[in-house]
């Protein structure tokens, strides 16, 4: 089958769980992984006579996020009821925002290949409450757990500005980075803190005419991998479907498909008998929110430098690679720690290496973040300097790093205690080199002769010096001395 020319058009609807202490409209704690129905009160249970009261932090987190996404904050915003019946929605309506969302018209910048960036426009960001969970028991009935019902949810809707699975993934990753940096959400996809629903269709060139395939919404994505693969799958599937049926987009033929992670395909969900009529109307139990200049500025002042800007700054100011800068800015705490160390005099590239290699390894082993390892920034700066000056070898620095974490002693103390201080004194080393050269005349000849044996012999002589110094000679210095003496 000849490949049709096409453009993929993808928009994303994202739900982000805010990490406030309590739910959106009641004071139940937001905790995960607990016994079912243990974090429920009359309000989030939707009992007769209860009333919602808005969580101020949740609204402020929403404002912070909207500002970070370059949105306009609405000065007047209100709450609406979105009606539908489902067992995990106790009131059978969700408190959400319809025609006057708390913010609109923003954008998010994603990194493309080759250092380019692309702006993906954001239509709106609004707040709502989450539903509980339905679980399908094997015994032929369903179970309902309302612990999550009422949790504060940020809904972000983008324009269909993405054109490839990679771009979709890049947006998802960047959004995760931003909300984590702001501290408004843990954004752990596995825990369900972030949910993505891509809307995908294709614009296919058929005989010079643009044909649009029907829009498909994909649900049930639990990882970035699933997100990327589902988009890729859908693109291919829609191409095939169009080639077979020629079906184009019409009003009302948008469908929903669920992602089957095991088989890596999307599956059409049961056709709804009627399209949802959500019957939105203003919630009479909640009053509107008016955002004053003062409040807005207060929130704006809490806006930190965004991760992508930080990343670009590390590249331009410190000469780090894009990749390394990305690793350092994946988590806010790591980036903050890095900057503290640099402020204390650590050479940025050296510090970066230490943190991203040994640091991350240790952190993973301990199940915490690098910043939580308990190292003082000035100790890390000192260690970096010691490596930079050749006082310890790079290998030794790994050991020292580990010991700092274990013992909380300073780097120089540990280096001395464990005999890791490198010998770098040219005079001292020179004497040892002289001795080694005298003891190994054959090798000296091999080096001087040039050819294949020369390199091997050079390495042998270096090894001998290292042996004589118990591995503590600075190999760089030794090499230099050898080079001079063997010319």
């Amino acid at each position: 089958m000849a490949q049709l020319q096409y453009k993929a058009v993808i928009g994303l609807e994202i739900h982000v769980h805010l990490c406030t202490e309590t739910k959106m409209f009641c004071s139940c704690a937001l905790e995960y992984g607990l016994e079912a129905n243990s974090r429920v009160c009359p309000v989030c249970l939707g009992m007769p006579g209860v009333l919602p009261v808005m969580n101020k932090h949740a609204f402020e987190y929403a404002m912070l996020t909207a500002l970070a996404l370059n949105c306009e904050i609405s000065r007047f915003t209100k709450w609406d009821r979105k009606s539908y019946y489902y067992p995990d929605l106790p009131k059978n309506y969700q408190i959400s925002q319809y025609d006057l969302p708390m913010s609109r018209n923003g954008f998010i910048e994603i990194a493309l290949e080759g250092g380019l960036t692309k702006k993906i426009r954001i239509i709106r960001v609004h707040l709502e409450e989450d539903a509980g969970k339905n679980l399908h028991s094997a015994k032929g009935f369903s179970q309902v757990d309302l612990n999550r019902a009422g949790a504060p949810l940020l809904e972000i809707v983008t324009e269909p500005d993405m054109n490839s699975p990679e771009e979709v993934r890049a947006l998802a990753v960047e959004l995760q980075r931003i909300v984590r940096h702001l501290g408004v959400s843990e954004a752990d996809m596995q825990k369900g803190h972030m949910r993505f629903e891509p809307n995908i269709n294709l614009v296919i060139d058929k005989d010079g005419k643009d044909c649009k395939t029907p829009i498909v919404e994909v649900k049930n994505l639990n990882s970035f991998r699933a997100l990327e693969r589902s988009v890729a799958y859908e693109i291919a599937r829609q191409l095939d479907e169009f080639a077979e049926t020629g079906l184009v987009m019409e009003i009302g033929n948008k469908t929903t498909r669920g992602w089957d992670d095991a088989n890596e395909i999307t599956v059409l969900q049961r056709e709804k008998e009627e399209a949802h009529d959500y019957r939105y109307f203003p919630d009479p139990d909640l009053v509107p929110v008016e955002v004053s200049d003062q409040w807005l500025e207060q929130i704006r002042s809490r806006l930190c430098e965004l991760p992508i800007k930080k990343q670009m700054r590390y590249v331009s100011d410190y000469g780090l690679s894009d990749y390394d800068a990305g690793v350092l800015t994946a988590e806010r705490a790591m980036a903050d720690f890095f900057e503290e160390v640099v402020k204390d005099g650590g050479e940025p590239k050296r510090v970066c290496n230490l943190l991203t290699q040994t640091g991350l390894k240790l952190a993973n082993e301990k199940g915490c973040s690098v910043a939580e390892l308990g190292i003082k920034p000035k100790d890390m700066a000192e260690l970096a300097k010691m490596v930079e000056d050749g006082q310890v070898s790079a290998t030794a620095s790994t050991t020292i790093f580990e010991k700092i974490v274990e013992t909380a002693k300073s780097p120089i103390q540990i280096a001395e205690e464990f005999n890791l201080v490198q010998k770098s004194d040219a005079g001292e080393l020179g004497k040892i080199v002289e001795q080694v050269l005298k003891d190994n005349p054959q090798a000296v000849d091999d080096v001087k002769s040039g050819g294949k044996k020369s390199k091997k012999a050079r390495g042998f002589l270096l090894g001998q010096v290292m042996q004589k110094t118990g591995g503590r000679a600075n190999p760089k210095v030794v090499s230099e001395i050898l080079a001079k003496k063997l010319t």
Partner: protein
Amino acid sequence: MKNIINEKQVRAVAKLSRLDLTDAEVEVFSRQLSSILEYVEKLNKLDTANVEPLAHCLPVSNVFREDKIKESLGVEKTLANAPQRDGEFFKVPKILDDSSGA
């Protein structure tokens, strides 16, 4: 009396409202609702082109709550009125589609 809301529409609304109606009820409601809807048409006599809708009587905005945890009901009290339960869950007949209603 005009038949503003016919039986087909009554059935559609009953479905949206999750109310199982008998045929007799559908017929009666169609008549009664039509009569009420006919009455409310008098509102169209008023020119409201330049009038703002009044959803809230009160001149109030920005009512918030501090983000402080208060004790939840606990599993037993939460499920105390449940018509059917399965351990610590509410129990319903199997829900067939995976999607939520949204």
